[in-house]
Each structure stands twice: as structure tokens, then as C-alpha cells.
């Protein structure tokens, strides 16, 4: 059960871990106990650590959350990009969509949802990006700047409009604008 208690925040463990372990040694462990401890860990992470660790702890937690959201969006982006290949080759997709218009509706809905989430990500993320970039330039943090430019080059390389590995047909924005 010790591994389950590792899911609790550090501040909580410092205060309650030893007595909880003593209790678990006496308690009959069932699947309900494991589920209960998992829910307890989520609750403790949401409600306990911030209050005890103070502002510095909350800032760290906020930073971790931002990174997690960023990673989650990247994963979403991978799935979304793959779905955009559904139209490839376009004539076959059009033929299928003629008989089953729900495919086109679903594809368009997915495309719109992806665009909205990307916009939301930009609105939320650009201020953070610019603050980080400005700080990196001010402090001359070359490693951070290289990471930023590296991402930009990779993005440009993957995008079909910049001669990347994709085909023009895969980018709906490009189809509409070219």
C-alpha cells in the first residue's frame, strides 16, 4: 500500500503517512480500499497541498498544470492531425461522403473543434510564450531560445505549405486559401 500513498502530496505525507501506514497494517485491504485511497489522493492533491505549501507551492503546482495542459494539447494535436488525413485521397472521401454525409459532418465538426481549441490554446498560451521568450532574451538563456526556435523549425518543416512532409490535400486551411 506504500506505493498508493506516494500519490498523495508530499506535505500531506509528511503529516499523515506514518499513522496511515500503521492503520493500513491493521485494516483488511480490499479493492474498495484501493479505490478509496485513489479518490483520497485526488482529493488531497486538489485540496491539501496548496493550503499547506503556501504561495510558492501553489506557483509550482500552477506551473506543473500549465506544462500538463500543454502536453495534453500536443497529444490532442497529434490525434487531430491524423484525423485530418481522413480526406486523403480527396476524391475517394468525397465519393464516400456523397453516400454517407454524416462522415463529412463529423469531419467538419472535428475540424471546427480542433480550430477552436487551437485558438483557445493560442489565446491562453501566447502571453506565457512571450513572457518566457522575453525573459530568456533578457537573461541570455541560449538553451531556452534554441528550444523555442527548434519547435518553430519543426512545425514549419511538418506543415505542407512550407514544403514539409505532408501533402497539400491534408491541410483544409490551405485548400480553402490556395
Amino acid at each position, binding site marked *: 500500500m506504500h506505493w498508493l500513498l506516494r500519490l498523495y502530496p508530499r506535505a500531506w505525507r509528511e503529516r499523515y503517512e506514518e*499513522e496511515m501506514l*500503521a492503520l493500513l497494517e491493521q*485494516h483488511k485491504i480490499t479493492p474498495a*480500499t484501493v479505490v*478509496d485511497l485513489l*479518490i*483520497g*489522493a485526488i482529493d*488531497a492533491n486538489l485540496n491539501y497541498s496548496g493550503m499547506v505549501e503556501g504561495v510558492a507551492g501553489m506557483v509550482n503546482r500552477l506551473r506543473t498544470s500549465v506544462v500538463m495542459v500543454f502536453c495534453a494539447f500536443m497529444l490532442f494535436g497529434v490525434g487531430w492531425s491524423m484525423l485530418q488525413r481522413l480526406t486523403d485521397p480527396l476524391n475517394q472521401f468525397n465519393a464516400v461522403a456523397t453516400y454517407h454525409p454524416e462522415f463529412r459532418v463529423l469531419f467538419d465538426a472535428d475540424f471546427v473543434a480542433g480550430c477552436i481549441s487551437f485558438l483557445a490554446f493560442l489565446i491562453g498560451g501566447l502571453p506565457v510564450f512571450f513572457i518566457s521568450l522575453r525573459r530568456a532574451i533578457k537573461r541570455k538563456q541560449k538553451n531556452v531560445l534554441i528550444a523555442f526556435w527548434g519547435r518553430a523549425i519543426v512545425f514549419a518543416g511538418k506543415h505542407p505549405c512550407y514544403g514539409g512532409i505532408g501533402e497539400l490535400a491534408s491541410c483544409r486551411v490551405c485548400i480553402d486559401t490556395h
Partner: protein
Amino acid sequence: MRKNESGRFSDASFLILSSLANGAKHGYAMMEDILAFSGTQLEPGTLYGAITRLEKQGWIEALPTEDRRRPYRITAEGVMALRKQVATLEQVASVGRKRLASLEGF
């Protein structure tokens, strides 16, 4: 007295306060006592979630650790909170009894 912020732990909090009303107890003793007087088997995650909140609210306080186990006791604020909860429950029970009595003809 502070507003009850126990959320989903409100029932567990009430049981813990009731258990501590007749003396200080550590976690496992509380679980056993609660099972005996209410038939409710509290799991450790729920128990410590409620203990955390009750401690934060100042309704219970920890005593020095004894052999890895830390006893808790109810505070004066906790006694007031328990009294209020008991009064509310008694009022609800009283209304329930009266309404059930009116149903006896059916």
C-alpha cells in the same frame, strides 16, 4: 462556528465527531468505533480526508504520537459543531416520525 466545508466528507465528519465525543482515539480505533455504533465501515482514504478537513476547521486536534499512531480529540469548537448537527438531525427525525405517524392509517 465556521461554516461546514466538509463537502462529500460531511457524513464521515459527523461520524468522526460522534466517535471522538467519548474520548480521544487514533484512526483505527475510530474506524472500529464507528463500525460498532453506526454499522458504517469507513475506508482509510475517506477517514483521513475527513480528519484533514476537521483538523483544518479546528474541530479536532492531534495529540502526541503513540507508537506510530496519532490520537485525535474533539475541540470545544468541534463539540459546538456536533451539537448543532445533532440538533438538526433530531429535528429532521422528529418531523419524519410525525409524518410517518400520519401515514399509519394507510
